[in-house]
């Protein structure tokens, strides 16, 4: 209380407006930039055709036979990854766990892709 009495007089009427505007700006940046929500499904495709769809609520493994070998997809609660792939550079394996909706791991040599989807699909694709 004493601290409040000491500091509050330094705020002028317009300063409250500035603080409110700043707060509104900061608060609005959260939903604007962090939308996309939670990923709830994983879609596995081969040659662009959907092979399988999994809800991201239980752990399981799924194997896909492609032109150069076997790609292993691992599903876990809230996330999914390519656990193994015969591709030379292992790009899709090195991407690790995918957690955001619309993020995708593409194992091009084996023609397999793993993509997460969410209820609110505001992006076509997200990569980091």
């Amino acid at each position: 209380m004493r601290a409040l009495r000491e500091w509050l007089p330094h705020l002028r009427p317009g300063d409250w407006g500035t603080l409110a505007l700043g707060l509104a700006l900061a608060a609005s940046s959260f939903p604007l930039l962090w939308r996309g929500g939670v990923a709830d499904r994983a879609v596995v495709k081969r040659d662009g055709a959907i092979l399988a769809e999994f809800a991201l609520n239980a752990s399981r493994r799924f194997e896909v036979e492609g032109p150069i070998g076997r790609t292993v997809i691992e599903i876990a609660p809230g996330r999914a990854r390519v656990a193994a792939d015969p591709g030379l550079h292992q790009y899709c394996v090195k991407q690790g766990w995918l957690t955001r909706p619309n993020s995708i791991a593409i194992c091009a040599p084996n023609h397999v892709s793993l993509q997460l989807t969410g209820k609110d699909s505001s992006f076509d694709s997200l990569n980091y």
Partner: protein
Amino acid sequence: MPLFAFLIIGERYFQTMSVELTVTSDDRRIARFAAAAIVLTIAEAAIPSPLPGVKPGLANIVVLVVLLRHGWADAAWVSLLRVFAASLLMGQFLAPGFFLSLAGALASLATLAATVRLPSRWFGPVTHSVAAAFAHMAAQLVVARLWLVPHDGVFLLTPIFATAALCFGAINGLIAAKLLVELDQ
């Protein structure tokens, strides 16, 4: 005797040759404030931060005090001298951090040039500080997006930086307001 005369002539010669840099009281004042700002920057660099770029920006308290006591031009000198001198002292001169710092300082100064024209009865140091903090953050994000991380992913950090700008801007503004009152007493 001739040698003595020669020395006198020589001395006169050098007196006419030397360029006198007159140091005005303005220069001394700006240097004093800039030194204070530099010290705060260096001290702040020792504080660990969870995210690079989220810093209290204590040196801006000095810039605010100079702005409201001596005007925008002096504040610009202090702010830019701080950016250059602090980066030289920390070995960051011309490194990415220096350009982020410079972009932030320039954007803040541009914003302060506008907010300082607001009626002072209604808008005090807190308004200047918060506005400048947001400008600082926005400029740094734009430079980072254009140059350092050419991907829209950097904008995902906006909520964190905006919250930091609001909090630190308000706190620095309050400290500057208190200092100004105490300096006037």
